[in-house]
């Protein structure tokens, strides 16, 4: 429907010689300037392109929230599921079509508060999906509320006197629940992030990558961390890369000014849809 006061929106895309040309819907980038959700989106897409995959080979699922809106940015089968349910949605997709490379890109509130139960069970099942969590430690879209990843003492819309709940350490949680690939990187370190995304795609099971993506709009403002650039500097000062750190020691602490990044688990084992395939053979051989 065209109305006279309709705003003209150009069809934004990369130049034709750019590797990501035609792969992203830039019109649906609704993120604050300086937010690292964009780098997560382009990192995933770059890896898919470099592997020679076209949209018929993959699918993207997100939940609700800022990062929840990321699925709309992909020119591919992309699904914006209910709040917290991106992982079971992706599980259904993967089992129904095991040839798909399935990515979940969602936020910490979505994946670890309302969707926390699905996360640990997907780790345990080792279903072959790649879960990228854009962790900003706060609910951005809904107005800066406290998340299960908010550090103790931090100020949010629902912790005006400072947060009193200890946060999840996502790396330790994923490893303890049985994820077969676990990594954590700051969102600005796209080279290392991409390397891990490739490894996640190679892993024949459940892969989890935590991407640190500070929210200056909500978190920064409430905790006086400054603008986007200042927050990235703040993050960079805390990040410590440790290649041999066991996952349960991968510290994430604002108080100690220390966030250990790296790849903590790379322990491939048979994936869930592969097991279902074998189960079918068993069932069919026993069929009367």
């Amino acid at each position, binding site marked *: *429907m065209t109305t006279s006061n309709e705003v003209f929106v150009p069809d934004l895309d990369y130049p034709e010689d750019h590797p990501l040309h035609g792969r992203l*819907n830039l*019109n*649906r980038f609704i993120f604050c300037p300086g937010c690292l959700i964009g780098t997560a989106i382009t990192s995933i897409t770059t890896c898919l392109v470099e592997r020679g995959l076209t*949209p*018929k*080979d993959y*699918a993207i*699922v997100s939940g609700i929230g800022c990062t929840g809106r990321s*699925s*709309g940015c*992909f*020119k*591919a*089968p*992309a*699904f*914006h*599921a*209910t*709040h*917290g*349910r991106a*992982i*079971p*949605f*992706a*599980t*259904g*997709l*993967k*089992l*129904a*079509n095991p*040839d*798909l490379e399935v990515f979940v890109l969602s936020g910490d509130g979505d994946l670890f508060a309302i969707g926390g*139960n*699905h996360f640990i*069970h997907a780790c345990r099942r080792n279903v072959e999906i790649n879960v990228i969590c854009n962790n900003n430690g706060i609910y951005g879209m809904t107005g800066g509320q406290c998340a299960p990843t908010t550090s103790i003492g931090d100020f949010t819309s629902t912790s005006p006197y400072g947060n009193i709940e200890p946060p999840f350490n996502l790396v330790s949680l994923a490893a303890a629940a049985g994820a077969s690939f676990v990594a954590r990187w700051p969102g600005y370190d796209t080279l290392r992030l991409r390397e891990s995304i490739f490894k996640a795609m190679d892993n024949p099971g459940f892969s989890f990558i935590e991407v640190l993506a500070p929210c200056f709009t909500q978190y920064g403002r409430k905790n006086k961390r400054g603008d986007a650039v200042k927050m990235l500097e703040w993050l960079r000062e805390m990040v410590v890369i440790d290649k041999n750190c066991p996952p349960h020691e991968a510290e994430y602490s604002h108080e100690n000014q220390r966030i250990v990044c790296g790849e903590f688990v790379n322990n491939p084992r048979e994936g869930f*849809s592969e097991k*279902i395939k074998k*189960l*079918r053979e*068993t*069932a*069919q051989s026993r*069929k009367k």
Partner: protein
Amino acid sequence: MPSTSKSSSKSKLILTTGNYASAEGAIAVGCRFFAGYPITPSSEIAHYMSRRLPQVGGSFIQMEDELASIVAVVGASYAGVKAMTATSGPGLSLMAETVGLGFMLEAPMVIVTVMRGGPSTGQPTKASQSDVMQTRYLSHGDYEMIVLAPATVQECYDFSIKAFNLAEKYRTPVIVATDGIVGQMMEPVSYHSNFEVITRKGPQVPPDKYQPFEVLDDDLVPGMATAGSEYNFYVTGLTHDNTGSPDMTPEREIELVKRLCDKIRRARPDINDWEEKYLEDAETVILSYGINSRGNPEAVAQARKKGHKVGYVRLKTIWPFPDELMERFGKLGVKKVLVTEMNYGQIIREVERFRHLGFSVSGLLVPTTIPFSPAFIYEGLMKEVNR
């Protein structure tokens, strides 16, 4: 239009339960994905699926809860596979939000709910009809739900098939509402293959022209692309335009909600079905559905033997409510309608909306777990006849 194929007929009777028949019906019509979570009295559907689906090349997964089960079903549906789940009242409550996503994404999917006593944990091992309003208004927002109500084990099989066909044809969630008795009792059933198989309409234009919610036919159903094809598409639970992009204008909300509702409302003649007897001369008519209708033939036969002009109607589809049946009551000059339900009054309110057509409405409404006996129905019927 949806593609259809007709299978050849073969028929042998076997003795089995409603839950098994529900599952086998689904497999017969092409269901190849089941995600569920244990809950009495529906669990046998999951048991059966865990054994049968791998045999036919499908996938069974026991999820961590009902929230996950229903979402996995939407995901599988969008991978192009016919998918279902089964549960009972408390589990259906947990599925509510994502059934709404199913409407918004127009994902074909089937949910069997085996009704038990409520509210809350209620009577897990018993039957009930107290969730018929739950099936209608399960999720938030405006939408039209399709709900089928089997009364026999044979209908569990047949209605599973019908449910998938309707889900695929109209790209919508469909609920089959059985109950603890129909689900768990055994009756002879024919696993016939004498039925039509409807498969969803695919994209009708090339990938570069495709918009996931563009309607090109009179049935208001857009062609559905699935993951793994050449088609790129984005679907969201947000109000969206034809391209799938979120659109927060009031105009779009009106347009989308109207289409989602109208595609079902307009199709009522295709969807709605009921069984009726003696309506031509009946002054008093019993209206019921599901297991609680099984005593009607005997009660009505008794009353007619004594010369009373009575009849009965059994709804096979509860939702969308069959307004045209009410109009038929009016045209035929029915004087009194007696609604019998194993709840404290749910469908009766729908019937009451049609009093202006000239009939009175009363109810035999007991929130019991035991279906009404013919004697109990007869007694209630005679009270109504003599009122």
